[in-house]
């Protein structure tokens, strides 16, 4: 089913309802917004936008973690993801949020410590905090791409 939504960067966009993601607990710092749409940034681009459906000014650039590297395993407890009702790790998709400090793209960073976990079966999601301190909150994207991540 298609619907039209308002976005921060691209005006009015038509989405399929399958692009809607529900965050029962919201995102850290954005506890009041629970409904987002996952949009493609551009055709052929691995970057996607997580656009709030409740406040059009709230949008995040995200990247599916398997585009960056394989073997990214954020450490969290089953309890942390009980809200998304996932039974198996195969049901989960991991996305990381990107930050562009001061508009300088070379300094773009990726939050590996606070990934978004989406249950692909019901489109529910949660932001978890990885207990692995090696997963930094601001990991330079360029380093990850050029050196190969872990």
């Amino acid at each position: 089913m298609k619907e039209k939504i308002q976005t921060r960067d691209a005006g009015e966009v038509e989405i399929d309802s399958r692009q809607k993601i529900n965050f029962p607990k919201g995102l850290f710092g954005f506890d009041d917004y629970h409904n987002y749409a996952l949009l493609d940034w551009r055709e052929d681009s691995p970057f996607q936008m997580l656009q709030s459906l409740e406040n059009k000014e709230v949008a995040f650039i995200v990247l599916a973690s398997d585009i960056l590297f394989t073997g990214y395993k954020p450490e969290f407890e089953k309890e942390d993801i009980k809200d998304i009702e996932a039974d198996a790790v195969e049901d989960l998709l991991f996305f990381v949020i990107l930050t562009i400090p001061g508009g300088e793209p070379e300094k773009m960073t990726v939050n590996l410590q606070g990934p978004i976990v989406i249950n692909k079966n019901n489109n529910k999601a949660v932001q978890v905090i990885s207990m692995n301190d090696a997963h930094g909150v601001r990991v330079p994207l360029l380093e990850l791409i050029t050196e190969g991540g872990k």
Partner: protein
Amino acid sequence: MLVLGRKLNEALMIGDDVEIIIVEIKGDQVKLGIKAPRQVKIYRKEIYEEIQSENIKAAENKPNINHLKDLEKLLQNKKNQ
């Protein structure tokens, strides 16, 4: 805020399920042992606040298509390796 003094090896109960023990005191660092049910999340406060503030910073970015194009090329090259 409740302020309590504890000596080494003494403990606090928070509710019925959370226990905090002073495990070691070394110089200016205090090591705390925490016993809690699995569903109670325990974070160092600065990490929790860091994730919050990083989200807020990330939401302020307005991506410029040219910025992302260069990174896309790099990602594509990496994929092809």
